[in-house]
């Protein structure tokens, strides 16, 4: 029984297998529509989420399985002081697989250590969000045709943005990927990413504050929201939340084949006028997310569809 807590829990080969299976499911969904008959996915969401929870639930329903769970900590025994370890021991008796989102970093790891069913980390604080990483990789691979030889720009909250951290970690495994980090100085990537991941592995990167200057050089622009819930200080949030706004004028500076990704939800950082641009693929990204989660559920439940 395997759990997926960090993007590092999956090898490049395993990720490639998942993407192949995801493509196959996307191409022939009817073939997989009863693959999880009789199986139950528990979605334990201690923090509000629309996309991720519904994506997991949609994935399981499309596979013929069922779902149960809670959508906020208020509706769980956490309010009574139950530990994550105890909760997962109970859930293990009801479900075959579990997706957990928790505001505290490391909570899904605690769950996995106490679980008899596979646990998928659906986001733990500012830490990891491996299925978003799989979604991002699958989207890039499907629409760009490759995960190597890319210039990838990350823009916005690079300090607390767990999707950014996880995607950087995953892309390091592919040759000739160069990163450009666009953020205000308060929201720059954490030191451990700069030192332990990039400098130590001689991965080329730049840190800039102006989006316009580097737009023409990018293959991928990964926009992020400045997340109110990650700030202890409301003033800092208000000051930084609209630091970058991608609009049509800025898109004119970008290459014709550049892709704009965003983990969503979007607030002000991408103007709605950009949605019509064929390079804006963040809504397609959501669909890829569901297919890759379907692939992950099948793999973790060790279900092969012939």
């Amino acid at each position, binding site marked *: 029984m395997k759990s997926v807590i960090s993007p590092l829990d999956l090898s490049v080969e395993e990720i490639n297998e998942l993407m192949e299976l995801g493509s196959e499911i996307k191409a022939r969904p009817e073939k997989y529509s009863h693959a999880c008959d009789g199986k139950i996915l528990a979605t334990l969401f201690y923090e509000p989420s629309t996309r991720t929870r519904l994506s997991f639930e949609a994935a399981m329903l499309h596979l013929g399985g069922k779902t149960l769970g809670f959508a906020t900590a208020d509706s769980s025994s956490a309010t009574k002081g139950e530990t994550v370890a105890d909760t997962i021991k109970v859930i293990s008796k009801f479900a075959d697989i579990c997706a957990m989102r928790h505001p505290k*970093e*490391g*909570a899904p790891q605690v769950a996995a250590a106490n679980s008899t069913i596979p646990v998928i980390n659906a986001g733990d*604080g500012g*830490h990891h969000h491996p299925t978003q990483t799989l979604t991002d990789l699958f989207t890039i691979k499907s629409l760009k045709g490759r995960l190597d030889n890319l210039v990838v720009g990350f823009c916005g909250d690079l300090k607390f943005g767990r999707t950014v951290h996880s995607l950087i970690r995953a892309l390091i495994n592919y040759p000739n990927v160069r990163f450009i980090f666009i953020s205000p100085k308060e929201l720059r990537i954490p030191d451990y990413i700069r030192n332990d991941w990039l400098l130590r592995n001689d991965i080329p990167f730049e840190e800039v504050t102006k989006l316009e200057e580097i737009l023409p050089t990018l293959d991928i622009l990964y926009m992020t929201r400045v997340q109110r819930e990650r700030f202890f200080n409301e003033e800092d949030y208000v000051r930084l939340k609209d630091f970058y706004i991608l609009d049509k004028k800025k898109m004119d500076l970008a290459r014709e084949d550049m892709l704009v990704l965003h983990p969503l939800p979007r607030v002000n950082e991408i103007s709605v006028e950009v949605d019509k641009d064929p390079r804006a693929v963040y809504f397609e990204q959501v669909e890829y997310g569901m297919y890759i989660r379907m692939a992950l559920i099948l793999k973790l439940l060790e279900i092969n569809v012939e």
Partner: protein
Amino acid sequence: MWSKGVESMAENEIKQGEYKLHVGKIEEGFVIDHIQPGRGMKIYRDLGLDKLDCCVAIIRNAYSRKMGKKDMIKVECPIDQFNMDFFGYVDHTATIDVIKNGEIISKPHLELPKKLTNVIRCHNPRCITSTEQQLDQVFVLTDPENGTYRCKYCETAYRDDDK
């Protein structure tokens, strides 16, 4: 600096120029030697020696042929009272003699332990250990060159000034 009960004028001898300081022999305990000069008090605190009801001697800036100066700590206590990982963590360049019945019974090699359990605490307020107090505080050595430890749960690096 002496804690209570330490007898002076015995076998161990530390020389610095003309000055001689004698510290009593211990029956059971540890001698932590070759501590980087100035770190003795920090190790004293980190090991929680200030909280023990046993005989402790700290010698600062003792003469050392190898190091020029060094700090030393002698602790008279039952030898199963300390976790060797802890010694390695606080100063892996130090040496340690384990003493029982007045004799040195081992000289464990100190190195940075790969994992520390309940030695240091994670100070990340977003870490699961901040709310679930029953969890072991586990840190993993991620960068032996720089002695960086990261929390097993949230991967936040432990800084020396967190202590």
